[in-house]
């Protein structure tokens, strides 16, 4: 039983407020200006490399663009001419398969961590995901190569192997972003569904995921943008070829970053033509990433829960 108190509250007296600032006012304003200037300066400095990079890639890559550049491979090309059609196909195939592998694994892991996970197992998974985030990409490539060498023998090259290497890099990103998005779904919505007698899994599928959909899709798109430019692991796993390869399950397959690398590192004659194509490939890659970012924004706009 609680004790009952009947307190007489003391009268509160507020001190008079001085509105005239005096010198401290002017000093505060000066500090405010200084901070504003510093923040803007930092922003401009951060922007400088980005602007320079954009300018360089566009100015050097744009001259390479032509119908031939987008529709020809490098097969049997001697000297000038040829294109990056094979590398575009390779990038699309390898990245798409990596996404097909990573998205279900990553999303399901995130669902486990947010909706079910508690205790030892969830802590271990979180730790392992953190560790995975830090894996150098070349190590992911070596891992995929070692795995496929065991299965198919030494010297194997195929698109799928590259996708596996990219998945190692992509899964932790997908887990992290999906986890954040699922955590944003208010618990009240889950409780509302449970209180209607909806089982947990249905609540997840029909309430939690739709509510978080915009964020999840955005996160996945940004994860794809993050891995589409990977080079090192694909050098080991996919190799390089001048021909178009539509089959990710056998033989070498060229992707845009690997093409750009090899066109620059081991150019054919004339060197200028090779280098121009490398810049062109880099520009395509940047356009791809930018397009993916735009798509992510549009998706989050379309799928976001509406209020009107």
């Amino acid at each position: 039983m609680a004790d009952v108190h009947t307190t007489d509250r003391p009268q509160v007296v507020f001190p008079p407020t001085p509105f005239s600032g005096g010198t401290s006012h002017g000093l505060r304003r000066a500090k405010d200006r200084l901070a504003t200037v510093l923040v803007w300066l930092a922003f401009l400095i951060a922007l400088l490399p980005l602007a320079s990079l954009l300018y360089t890639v566009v100015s050097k890559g744009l001259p390479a663009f032509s119908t031939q550049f987008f529709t020809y491979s490098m097969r049997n090309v001697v000297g000038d001419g040829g294109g990056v059609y094979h590398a575009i196909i390779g990038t699309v195939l390898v990245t798409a398969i990596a996404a097909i592998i990573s998205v279900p694994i990553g999303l399901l892991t995130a669902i486990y961590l947010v909706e079910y996970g508690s205790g030892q197992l969830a802590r271990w998974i979180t730790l392992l995901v953190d560790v995975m985030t830090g894996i150098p990409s070349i190590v992911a490539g070596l891992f995929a190569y070692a795995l496929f060498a065991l299965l198919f023998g030494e010297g194997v090259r195929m698109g799928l192997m590259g996708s596996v290497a990219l998945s190692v890099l992509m899964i932790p990103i997908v887990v992290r972003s999906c986890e954040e998005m699922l955590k944003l779904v208010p618990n009240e919505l889950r409780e509302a569904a449970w209180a209607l007698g909806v089982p947990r899994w249905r609540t997840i599928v029909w309430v939690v995921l739709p509510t978080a959909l915009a964020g999840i899709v955005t996160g996945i798109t940004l994860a794809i943008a993050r891995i589409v430019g990977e080079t090192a692991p694909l050098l080991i796993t996919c190799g390089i070829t001048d021909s178009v390869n539509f089959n990710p399950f056998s033989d070498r397959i060229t992707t845009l970053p690997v093409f750009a690398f090899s066109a620059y590192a081991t150019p054919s004659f004339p060197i200028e033509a090779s280098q121009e194509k490398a810049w062109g490939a880099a520009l395509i890659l940047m356009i791809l990433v930018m397009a993916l970012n735009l798509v992510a924004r549009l998706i989050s706009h379309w799928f976001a829960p509406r209020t009107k």
Partner: protein
Amino acid sequence: MARSIDVSDLNIYYGDFLAVEDVSILIPARSVTALIGPSGCGKSTFLRSLNRMHEVVPGAYVDGKIMIDGQDLYGADVDPVAVRRSIGMVFQRPNPFPTMSIYDNVMAGMKLNSKRMKKPDADSMVERSLRGANLWDEVKDRLHKPGSSLSGGQQQRLCISRAIAIEPQVLLMDEPCSALDPISTGAIEDLIHELKDRYTIVIVTHNMQQAARVSDMTGFFNLSGVGQPGRLIEAGPTKKMFTNPEEKATEAYVSGRFG
């Protein structure tokens, strides 16, 4: 199909922590029972144990008995998901599903459980439930607008229609008006009066006038100190609880001398 609830010697735990101790109360069918008391005294915890929502918190459990018309709510063969289908709940903050329209929110209990309904049946159920929550006239022209486009009071009534659409036997309300203005509160109190003909209603409230206005029975919870379990101090007819309670603490609380 209202039911009475008979609670005896109920202890409610969060892990090792005993949150509510030794509650025994008989909640009669087709009536409104209000639970009052200071914050943290276990009213909401007790309410959530009545539809087994308490145990969604990891480590939470109860011991003691809750009988609903002679059926043990915590019996070994009782499925908590099935319990929640027959005991509806309305929460403190209105929580319509943001991805669903007004219509789909009312249908949520059916849709989320994949119960198929013919379109005319569904339409009439939505209308019946919205009329039941006094919301029909305000939303009948925009049933396919998102539920979150409504005002707070309308959203709360939408949540009530969602809860009564699955035709529960008992309706639990956890401070349903605490986020609402007086006019919306009045609308919901009127609604509670109408609903008690069909449902057994248990309402947690911080507003003693509200308890006095809407309830037939009142239970007063209190706790003797921070970290101590909450207890049901006294329960009885509302009129008696507010005019001539047995316990001194009840009198002090309802007369506003503490809390």
